[in-house]
């Protein structure tokens, strides 16, 4: 059974996969990971996937509009933003206001990828005009420069900070300005294994599946 899932789900879905296969010994789940837009294109081009888990609703909507879903898409987790700083927070960053300080080295993702778009929305919500020193092409590139201590702060997802295992610290962004990304999941109309596909979605939405996902920093909807 093939599960097409957003790259940000890589570690979490790997653990969900082992738990699912433990309970369904005759099933072999294969994870097809990539950016949500690339996965969407694959599905629309007719790639034989069973389940689609997207990191935002717009890609799922496009698949639904093309009639490629066998049911309704459901939001299975959300992911919020955090301020990422190098371990020890050498610049003493306390909140989004610090993104306006010109003497700090501040990085964001480029405007056109989700983390850059959501990050700017959060700054906008907080009424902060950031003094940006670099717009990194993706969240991995941004994290690398924060990990190396070359940037004082950036905005990433909570799950990205957790995935660095301690080289980056996360600072909370208040809920009233934070931007929440919703992750929808659905079985596909052309699924070669529709029964297993439905079981996977059910498992992801179950208490056990949700417990695994929240341990990686995702939030239950």
């Amino acid at each position: 059974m093939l599960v097409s899932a957003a790259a940000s789900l890589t570690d979490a879905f790997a653990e969900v996969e082992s738990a699912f296969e433990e309970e369904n010994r005759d099933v072999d789940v294969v994870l097809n990971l990539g950016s949500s837009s690339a996965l969407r294109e694959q599905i629309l081009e007719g790639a034989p996937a069973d389940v689609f888990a997207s990191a935002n609703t717009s890609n799922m909507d496009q698949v639904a509009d093309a009639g490629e879903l066998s049911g309704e898409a459901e939001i299975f987790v959300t992911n919020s933003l955090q301020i990422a700083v190098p371990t020890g927070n050498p610049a003493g960053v306390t909140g989004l206001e610090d993104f306006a300080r010109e003497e700090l080295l501040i990085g964001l993702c480029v405007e056109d990828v989700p983390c850059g778009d959501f990050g700017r929305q959060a700054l906008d919500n907080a009424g902060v005009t950031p003094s940006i020193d670099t717009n990194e092409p993706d969240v991995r590139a941004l994290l690398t420069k924060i990990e190396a201590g070359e940037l004082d702060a950036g905005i990433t997802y909570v799950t990205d900070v957790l995935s660095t295992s301690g080289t980056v610290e996360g600072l909370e962004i208040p809920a009233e300005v934070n931007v929440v990304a919703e992750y929808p999941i659905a079985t596909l109309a052309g699924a070669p294994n529709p029964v297993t596909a439905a079981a996977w979605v059910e498992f992801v939405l179950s208490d056990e599946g949700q417990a695994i996902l929240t341990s990686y920093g995702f939030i239950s909807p």
Partner: protein
Amino acid sequence: MKADTSVRPRTRRPPVLLVVLGAIGLAMFVIPFVGLLARVPWSDLPALLAGDVVTDALRLSVVTSLTATLIAVVVGIPLAWIMARLDFPGRSLVRGLVTLPLVLPPVVGGAALLFALGRRGLVGESLEQATGLLLPFSTWGVVVANTFVAMPFLVITVEGALRNLDQRYEGAAASLGAGRWTVLRRVTLPMIGPSLVAGLVLTWARAFGEFGATITFAGNLQGRTQTLPLAVFVALESDRDTAVALSLVMVVVSLAVLVTLRERWWKAL
């Protein structure tokens, strides 16, 4: 007088197989650019090219690539001379190190630069304390990344030319009373001139097109570190027309320089 044997081919018709294979080779270079040209939004082009993303990136690319070429001349030519003329232990290691940026993925070079010259880097930390100069996320960072990736072209070309140069000419000039500086200026440089120019052009062109080391070491900010290749990369995600317009600018500028200089200088090679 002996008969002219097989030195010149008698037939005017070139071998068909050779021409066909050569044409396939040429098509590899031509087809992608035809594809690019087919996507150019000609009617919107003036407006796209006048946008500040394009003008900022073009200005930054021209300034940083020329500065990198200048630095390559100042330190690269002496390095080439040392490698060609001095016998010292570890010369082949030096030659390997100089060639390394040619084969390494530029991203690796950029990461190495970041770890060495970043503010937490081996050299970068003391550099910042001593001078206040911070290379990452600055225009100088772009120049450093460009120089790192492009200078090998100049060093390798000039070193090769110096090694092939018959040193008896320099010796003759010196024995006729020419000082070292005069020998360099009147004998050595003119004799390696075509190689020098070829090396300079390749160095500039490589710097002008540099992407991986720049974005890894210097980051990406319009007007400060976003050169043309970076602007193309970012625009491809969102604004295909601007990306194509930027690519067209790169192709036209690079091709113009390469063709003009080839006509003027490389004939001599």
